[in-house]
């Protein structure tokens, strides 16, 4: 589902965020991406969602090399990826329903389809009945779940999340992780960038560790000695 081949990314300001990253995530997998701030986690996610293009190497997502994808095909490409942010990026002046419906609206779904799918997505994150509320009327945890509902509403085969539990207390964070696991069980490929090593360890799932723009470790977290070194 995701393949990085010797990828380097240098931003226009000269900062080299990734110097040499190769990794592969198979369809249906759920992996964590860890590392300190500035290690390149966000850059990896941006390259996957085609918010950035690689400076060197190849990024292949869903069989499509992003490096040379023409601009007019980017929207269709992004519709196959759900993105969850730490700050959830909801539109403050729109009710929950409209926020969640956005990916369907841009894809020109019918009204009936939108209604059905938005409810299904809200049901999945346990927020059915909150459609007409504004994001500000919800708790932080609920807002994050609305963000997740928006990411999964169009049933993308791939979900990427950048620090989705960063603003949540441990209990809410565990809930969100549980949600991701359930999605993964129904076949969604998931990549979660986080520095919450506790969560990663508890999950027992594959962890890709980034360090200074390189992959420093790639294994089930319990067997990874470098985690200790990081802490």
């Amino acid at each position: 589902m995701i393949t990085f081949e010797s990828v380097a990314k240098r931003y226009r300001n000269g900062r080299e965020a990734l110097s040499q990253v190769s990794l592969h995530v198979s369809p249906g997998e759920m992996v964590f991406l860890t590392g300190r701030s500035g290690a390149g986690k966000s850059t990896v996610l941006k390259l996957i969602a085609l918010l950035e293009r690689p400076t060197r190497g190849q990024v292949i997502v869903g069989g499509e090399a992003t490096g040379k994808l023409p601009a007019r095909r980017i929207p269709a490409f992004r519709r196959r990826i759900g993105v969850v942010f730490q700050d959830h990026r909801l539109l403050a002046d729109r009710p929950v329903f409209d926020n969640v419906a956005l990916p369907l609206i841009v894809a020109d779904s019918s009204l009936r389809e939108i209604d059905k799918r938005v409810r299904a997505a809200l049901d999945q994150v346990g927020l059915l009945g909150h459609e007409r509320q504004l994001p500000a009327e919800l708790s932080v945890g609920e807002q994050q779940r609305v963000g997740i509902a928006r990411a999964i509403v169009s049933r993308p085969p791939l979900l990427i999340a950048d620090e989705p539990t960063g603003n949540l207390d441990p209990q809410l964070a565990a809930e969100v992780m549980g949600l991701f696991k359930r999605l993964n069980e129904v076949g969604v490929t998931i990549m979660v960038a986080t520095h919450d090593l506790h969560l990663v360890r508890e999950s027992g799932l594959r962890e890709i560790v980034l360090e200074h723009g390189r992959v420093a470790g790639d294994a089930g977290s319990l067997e990874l000695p470098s985690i200790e070194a990081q802490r």
Partner: protein
Amino acid sequence: MNWLLRHVQSLLASAGHLARAPIATTFTVLVMGLALALPLGLDVLVRNVRSATGDFSGAIGISVYLKTNVPEARARQLLRSARDRPGVRTVTLITASEALAQFRQQSGFGAALDALEDNPLPHVLAITPTAAGDDPAAVENLRRYLQAWPEVETVQVDGDWVARFNAILALLRRLLLLAAGLLGLGVVAVVGNTIRLEIQNRRAEIEVTKLVGGTNAFVRRPFLYTGALYGLLGGLCAFVVVAVALWLLAPFAARLAQSYGSLFALHGPTLRDLGLLLGAGTLLGWVGAWLAAGRHLARIEPGT
């Protein structure tokens, strides 16, 4: 169907956005309305002046005075050749004896004229040109042509003030077109700037929309509708401004007309003007929004 529904939704959403910021919207619409009202007002003014002064083209006449030694038979030949000349509507010959009889009647110098041995008056060709009053050059050409005839003593054009007056009106109309063009550009700039600010205010929304796979066309659509709505409302505002201004002026115009014994009344802007204004306003608004959206939307990309 789905496509149409999307556009209607987008239009309604844009209208909602405008309605939620009534003061800002009002000011923008007012600026555009005043800009559009000026050319319309000028146009209505010119039309009113035209109708007040009527059709003067009949007031232009050319009197061709023949030399006194030209016999009447020759004068009749000249009449025929003048009639064949393009640009001449009617020609009548006033013979020297007719003119004398007329003069005798009207002047009251009957007795004095009897003392004259022969008729001192020449034959005269009275010509009405076909050229409308707004074409002084054609009238002047005709005058020169007639002046060149050897039998002609002098050619006099009566009512060339009409030509001048019409030339002034034509100049006003040209000025009006120029003003309309410049103010149209102003409207485009106002909408463009408003849309630019709007795009900046809604940056987060644009980023998220692009992130979830919204195309540039999708993102642009509500701004185009916003621009077109601004234009439409501006056009409506302009119409109201001109209509109200004329309504305020009407009693004064009527009093002035009355003092001249005229039945003239001010004509307000017509429904056709309204249609034209709304159409032009909408188009200008759309263009302004399109220019601004083209420039500023492409720069907004999510996550950068």
